[in-house]
């Protein structure tokens, strides 16, 4: 779940990292009052959960409080990439000598956080990594063991920063890494981190993303920031297809058959099991397939739920076939899922043998499941066929399929 900039700045401030004397408001008159309090030139920034706000006119500079008020009024009405702002942040226009970058991101492959630092800030770190790789320092660190100064020092020093800058930056990067771990974040980024004329550092902008599943562990922080429990903060609104997936999953308490994400391909996916969904989705793409959706099925859903999910996917415009694939299942029954997906085809007047590109779910009750699949002529694979190979076969089938 992403934080707005004004929330991320508050998280940074609470961690003991210096921030500017900013203010957040939803009222132009209050923006004026904040600018008066700041007492100098200000920047008025739209608070939206999308990029490109500068280009869209969502960031404006003001020399007087009156100008700040006028800009705030404009920005509060400005939609950016389909998002209306939550409010505006009124920030002093700091006299910055140099902009730096400090960030921590979760590395899903290594299953560890990685600290990233660069003396080139204010632009995307990806761009810096590409154009000036020697100006990006990084190191993984444990999210269980305590963090030490030397870890941050090593990363910063590797980019050529020395002397008092290095000494002042170490606690900032260290605090950022700590707040990342303590708040179960997947991203904590200060960009730019500005060095002022007196040599001190101040966070000028921050981006943070907390692990969705960890929200329950951070109720106090979220309440302090005014984040409502109902706020999902997804990058976009759920599509009708995705909402229909939620309805399928909510129809009874048994198992999971939902968590649907819409894509625009032609191969419908009914996939799941212990990380299997992501692996299978990637495998389909790696073989040149175009998934129509992502979803998760597992935990032994009812036949009705498996059927509802398969029907939803089969009914999606552009879907030619579905691939029903899971890792080896133990707490989900193969025969129940087989019944569900075949029933979906039959209820839609479709031939399961033609519509199900492959059924690859080995595990509990597979003998019974395979009997059902054979009865309806569905191509199935047992555990001797890898997830990757099953995905390849599904893609091969759909690429040879005549267009609808």
């Amino acid at each position, binding site marked *: 779940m992403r934080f707005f900039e004004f929330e991320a700045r508050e998280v940074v401030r609470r961690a003991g990292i210096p921030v500017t004397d900013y203010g957040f408001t939803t009222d132009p008159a209050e923006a004026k009052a904040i600018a008066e309090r700041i007492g100098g030139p200000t920047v008025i920034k739209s608070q939206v959960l999308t990029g490109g706000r500068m280009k869209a006119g969502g960031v404006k500079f003001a020399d007087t409080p009156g100008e700040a008020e006028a800009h705030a009024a404009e920005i509060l009405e400005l939609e950016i990439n389909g998002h209306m702002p939550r409010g505006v942040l009124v920030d002093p226009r700091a006299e910055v000598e140099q902009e730096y970058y400090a960030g921590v991101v979760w590395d899903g492959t290594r299953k560890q956080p990685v600290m990233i630092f660069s003396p080139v800030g204010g632009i995307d770190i990806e761009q810096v990594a590409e154009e000036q790789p020697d100006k990006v320092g990084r190191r993984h660190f444990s999210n269980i063991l305590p963090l030490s100064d030397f870890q941050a020092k090593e990363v910063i020093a590797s980019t050529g920063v020395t002397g008092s800058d290095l000494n002042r930056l170490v606690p900032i990067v260290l605090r950022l890494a700590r707040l990342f771990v303590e708040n179960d974040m997947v991203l904590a980024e200060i960009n730019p981190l500005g060095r002022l004329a007196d040599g001190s550092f101040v966070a000028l902008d921050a981006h943070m993303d907390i692990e969705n599943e960890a929200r329950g562990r951070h109720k106090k922080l979220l309440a302090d920031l005014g984040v409502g429990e109902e706020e999902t903060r997804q990058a976009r609104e759920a599509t009708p297809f995705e909402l229909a997936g939620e309805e399928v999953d909510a129809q009874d308490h048994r198992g999971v058959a939902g968590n649907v994400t819409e894509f625009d391909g032609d191969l419908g996916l009914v996939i799941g099991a212990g990380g299997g969904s992501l692996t299978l989705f990637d495998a389909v793409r790696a073989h040149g397939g175009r998934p129509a959706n992502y979803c998760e099925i597992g935990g032994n859903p009812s036949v*009705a739920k498996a059927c509802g999910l398969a029907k939803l996917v089969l009914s999606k415009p552009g879907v030619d076939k579905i691939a029903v694939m899971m890792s080896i299942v133990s707490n989900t029954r193969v025969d129940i899922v087989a019944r569900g997906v075949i029933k979906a085809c039959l209820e839609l007047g479709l031939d399961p043998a033609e519509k199900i590109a492959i059924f690859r779910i080995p595990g509990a009750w597979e003998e019974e499941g395979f009997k059902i699949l054979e*009865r309806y002529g569905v191509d199935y694979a047992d555990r001797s066929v890898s997830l990757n190979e099953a995905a390849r076969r599904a893609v091969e089938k759909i690429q040879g399929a005549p267009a609808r």
Partner: protein
Amino acid sequence: MRADGTFIAVEVEDAAAGDTELARRLAEACPVDIFLASDSGVALVDGNLDECVLCRLCLDAAGARGAGSPVKIIKLYDDGALLD
């Protein structure tokens, strides 16, 4: 009395279908609510037939398995094989 789903059919011998005590035991035993108990005996819930998890609890509640049971669970996808 017999009801057919897509995959599963359930049959209750006519002589047993009016047994309210058997109906009560079946309704209590079945985890997916295929049986209903009423004043007139057993009723079958068509919409739940394909949810049958082949657990045999109904057969045990009826006191016998296989061909001799007053309750039969028939696997339509397996050439009508009986759950026993």
